[in-house]
């Protein structure tokens, strides 16, 4: 199958200028410009196929935004190859952007002072969307995204959640084949997040729109994406199914115990105490090395137990451990 996004050995190096301090320093800056090189994207390659919804995650400053900026044509890479939807993004800007959509959670594409309807109408003309397509898409989206009660409000007066829904509507009006969503749920409450996730899922399933989703919220990924790519220090560290990632690095489970009386140190072979408050103690253990039933047997042989439960470690915690402990780091890496 042909790739929707084809990336090979992509590099982007920034010059970060060292500034001299003070007034004289400002003068020196004009003539004496020293800089450091930052490898924001350091040789990444991947393919995304038509109709896929792929999550793209990584800690702050990992190179996510730089990648998205290159893929959307906003930034010219230092080296490497990108073909997205049949175009080289930064070379054929107008033809390329006609058939893509992009939502940057921190910014809006809408006109700040205009009512939402006027903004969307301007976009209709910019994208030259046929009237009947516009009407049917707009009708559908305003229902799923519940836009009705702020459709005549100027964009500056919208809440963050409302604005995000409006921006999502704007990004999909022209039936793009490829859409980039950069932090579309940032700062939103649970209900707004849910509505946005349902919309993304609907579009991906019904229209087979290819979507690349960047987010800090791992639950977005867990709900929406089968495949996930993890980037750190400008390199792709993982590219595969989220389930496989969790299988390899997660697999930790929590055993939460309420004892009948307080024990000074209720240790348990094969499990670590990660939380302790009086008679309530939480153990963490590796699913592959020890079974829950064995642990419970050991516990009940030594202590009196009132109640207990077993649960999987939250995905967020697993991902955080991967970032913090650099579990995915290549051996060859010398940094």
């Amino acid at each position, binding site marked *: 199958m042909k790739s929707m996004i084809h990336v090979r050995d992509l590099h982007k190096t920034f*010059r970060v200028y060292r500034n001299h301090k003070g007034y004289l320093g400002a003068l020196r800056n004009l003539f004496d410009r020293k800089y450091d090189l930052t490898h924001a994207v350091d040789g990444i390659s991947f393919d995304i196929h038509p109709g896929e919804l792929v999550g793209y995650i990584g800690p702050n400053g990992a190179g996510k935004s730089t990648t998205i*900026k290159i893929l959307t*044509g906003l930034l010219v890479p230092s080296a490497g190859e990108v073909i997205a939807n049949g175009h080289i993004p*930064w070379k054929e*800007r*107008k033809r390329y952007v006609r058939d893509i959509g992009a939502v940057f959670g921190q910014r809006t594409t809408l006109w700040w002072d205009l009512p939402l309807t006027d903004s969307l109408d301007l*976009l209709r003309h*910019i*994208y030259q969307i046929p009237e009947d397509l516009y009407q049917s898409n707009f009708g559908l989206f305003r229902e799923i995204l519940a836009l009705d009660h702020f459709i005549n409000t100027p964009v500056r007066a919208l809440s963050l959640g409302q604005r995000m829904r409006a921006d999502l509507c704007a990004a999909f009006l022209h039936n793009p084949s490829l859409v980039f969503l950069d932090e579309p749920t940032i700062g939103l409450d649970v209900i707004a997040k849910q509505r946005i996730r349902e919309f993304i899922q609907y579009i991906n399933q019904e229209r087979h729109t290819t979507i690349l989703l960047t987010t800090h919220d791992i639950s977005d990924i867990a709900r929406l994406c089968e495949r996930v790519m993890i980037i750190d220090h400008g390199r792709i560290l993982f590219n595969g199914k989220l389930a496989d990632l969790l299988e390899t690095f997660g697999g930790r489970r929590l055993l939460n115990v309420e004892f009948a009386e307080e024990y000074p140190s209720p240790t348990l072979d094969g499990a670590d105490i990660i939380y302790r408050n009086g008679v309530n103690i939480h153990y963490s253990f590796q699913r592959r090395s020890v079974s829950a039933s064995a642990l419970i047997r050991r516990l009940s042989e030594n202590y009196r137990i009132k109640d207990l439960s077993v649960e999987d470690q939250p995905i967020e915690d697993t991902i955080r451990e991967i970032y913090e402990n650099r579990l995915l780091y290549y051996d060859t890496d010398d940094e």
Partner: protein
Amino acid sequence: MIHALRLLARMYRVQIRSQLQYPLSFIMDLLSSALILGFFFVAFALTLTRFESIGGWTLGEVAFIWGITEFSFGTMDMVFSGFDYDSFGPIIRKGQFDQLLLRPANITLQVLGSRFVIRRLGRMAEGLLIFLFGLSRIQLDWSLLKILYVPLLSISQILFFGSLFIIGATTTFWTMERLEILNIFTYGGAEVMSYPMHIFPRPIRMIFTYLVPSIFLSYFPAVYLLGKPDPLNAPAFISFLAPVIAMLMLWLALRFWRFGIRNYQSSGS
């Protein structure tokens, strides 16, 4: 091209509608800006009545070029204000420029359409009044060429000032901040163009001849239109260079602008 112009018209239309939403405040805005700017001329006129003329030009003759310049600057400020720092600076600083790059439309057109300030009609009206006042005080020896050259001169001035705004906006790609020094050439340029330029000391005249060629857009054309003697002794054809200089400036400004956009895309923000 037709699609682009229709899009621009549409962008203007929605903004006009939103700016006219509060008609009373709009009218007050219009009147106050016309009055405040008009007072500058009144103050100047009152002073000039004491001296009869300035550099051999009567009040009516100065009003003639003052009015044209004022009208042109007001029109430019209405149409080109998307390139004004107040509007374009935040577009760059807040990263909104990325949003323009993501839309399938010409960037220049989108910036042009991003702000249309209809209350500049106040300044245009003020300029027109001063121009008409000037006309009423002078005996102008009209010819068909002169009648055609006045509107052409105004259009040239609009494009000339617009070019300076575009150049100012382009510097924002690097500086992120307003470069106050550029105001010398835009606002200062408009100021010197309101007077017969031979009255200024040589260094100032040099700046507005060679660095920013304002002198070709008011003084020399006025020498021809008003039939004044030229103490600078320039050849006669120089009076007709205004459209040429304006187009040249616009061409340079747009090249610089494109260069700025390319730089923005390769350096990131």
